[in-house]
């Protein structure tokens, strides 16, 4: 376990390739053993062979969960999970810029139904959008165009 991790991205998340190999072996062996052993014994106990198969499948699926549990114990996630404490202003600005560039643009707070404006005040976003709207208007005036131009789809990049 002292060797450095060999990280690869498989099926949407990162894994260590050696851990992955072991996980596959553990998953296959445990679930298949559970299924085959259950099937063997149930055939003698349950009257209909089809039902014996179904119960064996149930036990086999239980085996899958056991294998998953063992692998969860053996192999730690290769993720770094940070607990953010309220969002970084940098992300907010990036998100606002992206929204302004989207088709449909940022829109105007004045057009909002009162209940939505109230919701935005409650979650603390009203002022952020109001400031950004003013900034866009000021920029538009400086550029000598109407602010409406900013509401039209802009090439964002």
């Amino acid at each position: 376990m002292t060797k450095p991790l060999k990280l690869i991205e498989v099926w949407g998340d990162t894994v260590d390739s050696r851990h992955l190999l072991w996980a596959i072996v553990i998953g296959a062996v445990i679930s298949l053993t559970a299924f085959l052993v259950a099937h063997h014994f149930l055939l003698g106990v349950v009257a209909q062979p089809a039902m014996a198969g179904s119960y064996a499948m149930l036990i086999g699926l239980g085996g899958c969960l056991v294998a998953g549990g063992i692998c969860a114990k053996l192999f730690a996630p290769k993720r770094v999970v940070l607990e953010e404490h309220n969002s970084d202003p940098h992300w907010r600005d990036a998100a606002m810029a992206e929204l302004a560039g989207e088709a449909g643009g940022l829109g105007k707070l004045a057009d909002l139904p009162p209940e939505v404006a109230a919701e935005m005040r409650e979650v603390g976003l009203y002022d952020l959008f109001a400031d950004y709207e003013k900034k866009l208007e000021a920029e538009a005036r400086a550029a000598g165009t109407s602010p409406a131009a900013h509401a039209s789809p802009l090439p964002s990049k």
Partner: protein
Amino acid sequence: METLITDILVAISMGLLGAVIFSALGLVSGTDETATLAPLTLLVVLLGVPPAGVLTFFLAGAVAKHMTHAIPTTLLGIPGDTLATPLLAHATALRNLGVPHIALRKMISGAFIAAFIAVPLAVLFAVLLAPFGPAITKSAPWIFFAAALMIAYFSPGRWASVALLVPFVTIIMALQAVSLKYDARLTISYFLGIAIGPLIADLFASISPVDNKRMQRDSPRKFSLSPDVRSWSGYFPNPLKVLDGTQRKWTAITATISSATFVFSPVAMTVLMGEVVGSRVKHAYHRMTTVLAARNGVTEATYIAEALIPLIAFGLPLSPVAAGPAAPLFNAPPRFTIDAATGQVNNLHTMLSHWEFLGYGLLAVLLAALIAYPLTMNFAHRAALFVSRKLSHEAIIATFIGLIFVISIWEGGIMGFLVILTMGLMGGLLSRHFGFNTGVQFMGFYIAILTVPALLRVTGLA
């Protein structure tokens, strides 16, 4: 009377079981709907659970999963399952603005409202279509063919997907011929292979030096979990109050539209309905929250309607959901069967009345909402933290590898395993490189078993 009470008790307990299992699965990203719903529903069918219990298990599971899938999507920025993918962009934007809890609440409230709307509508549409049932059943091979062409054309691959149906169907027919030679009659192995295809394709790629380079990473993925913000009192916040008037209206409209258009792929409908709503809401904040509510509503409505309408009206799996995740409700031999030659069906279609579909459908949604909605509202943060810190991707893969082995060996021994492996690799690669997505692949299976034999018979080229 006594049987009715027994049926209702079974329906309640199976619905609760489905809701609990799939609420948990919704938290785990990568748990594709088909790969989880299809095998577990099949198991419930084969263990002999009464029809009402089978229906509530499936529906409560699907509805619950599409509520809790909002947790990883909004709090961690990773899609909870396949249908959560179209919601990721707006969820991430709201996360960056520091209000992920708003995205979460809008999503599950949209799901809640849409699910309750979709059940009666689905039953209504099915009743309207039912008179055409016998005609449709009789011409099933051609209707499946038309549906497959349409679903293929509307998939990301467009004409490539239409053309790819030919070699894909040929491979299924070849695999069927070989497995029949060894006395293995396979269905679920094909579906599971298709659903789990991306994993199988990735595992093959990871051992090839050519592809391995592309997959290598220098550092673990970083996720930032947003803080917990709770701004309501009580245990069960009213979903109608979480959404404003515009959002209630659009959630209801899109749920209705997507219930009626039951032959389209759920992912495509989710994307499309979001675009329709987004273009009609002017302010960016209001647009994002409204689209999130409507889109997640569509994920519920499509699953409910696409399972219920074909089930009630025809008994044939004539939609992407019915052909994939809900397939065991139609075809789970020896208990549920569809005779390819005569179009004779023996499944929930023949076992439950329209009123029972309506009643048990609503019961399933109610049970899912009772479990998943307060869970998501109250424990989202803790659940996301637990899953992301304790459950490694290796463990998830181990579980699915086990699933592949157990289901395939159970259905067809070594032959079953070979089929799952081949279908998975083929399907995964075709989906990744050509946009020939799983919805089209499921339909390809029915083309192989229904349309091609009929085509050969009619043309006399057999």
